[in-house]
């Protein structure tokens, strides 16, 4: 047996393992992203988060502001292929889809973090009327594709006092 044929056989034999590998890689990578985000949030401190500086109300304290800016941030997130594969099994019995929960929670926290970053870059002191939207992006070729992505959008008005 030549070396190339051995390689081909190894690749072929490892094909059934692919969902497991992708699942494990997804879990590992996403928990790393989550930890990095937690670190960033800790570093940021409470500079914009405290005392109602981030709110979904549209009327409070608007009149005293000198200027405003429209802020919008979006992020595209998705679970890994392996996770999607196992989700299919999970959907036979129903219940919580933990992989999706993790991914969406990460995305939403990240998008709010970036919104605060953008506000800070523009010199805003508070963020009002925050709206969060979720939409499914079908960039994949068909419905049965092992690819899935969700767009999370946040938009708000930043006020400069």
């Amino acid at each position: 047996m030549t070396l190339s044929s051995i390689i081909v056989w190894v690749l072929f034999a490892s094909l059934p393992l692919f969902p497991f590998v992708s699942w494990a890689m997804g879990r590992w990578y996403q928990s790393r992203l989550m930890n990095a985000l937690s670190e960033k949030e800790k570093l940021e401190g409470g500079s914009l988060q405290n005392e109602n500086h981030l709110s979904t109300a549209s009327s409070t304290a608007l009149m005293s502001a000198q200027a405003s800016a429209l802020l919008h941030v979006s992020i595209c997130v998705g679970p890994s292929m392996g996770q999607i594969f196992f989700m299919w099994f999970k959907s036979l019995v129903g219940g919580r889809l933990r992989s999706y929960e993790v991914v969406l929670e990460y995305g939403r926290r990240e998008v709010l973090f970036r919104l605060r970053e953008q506000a800070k870059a523009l010199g805003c002191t508070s963020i009002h009327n925050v709206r969060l939207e979720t939409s499914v992006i079908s960039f994949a070729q068909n419905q049965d594709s092992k690819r899935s992505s969700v767009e999370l959008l946040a938009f708000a008005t930043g006020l400069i006092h």
Partner: protein
Amino acid sequence: MSNVETIPGKSITRSLGLVTGSTVRAKHLGKDIFAGLKNLVGGELKQYTDLLNESRNEALQRMMMQAHGMGANGIVNIRFATSSVAAGASELFCYGTAVVVE
């Protein structure tokens, strides 16, 4: 531009009605291949994020152009919407009310 009912710190003198802006964007094949690789681990798909941001800015530009054409100098109550119109393409849409402020 703001997504609340007023433009903070300014007063609205006249309302000129609805303005809209939209773009339909398809994926870029090269970027899609990279995004496919990224799908091995999941998490953020940076290529799509960039693509959508770029398109959303374009939609905003178009809305601003329309408002400018009407003689407005501000847009209030802006809302964004995203929808998948076809496989491989999605529409980014934004709308608001054009106003004259002083």
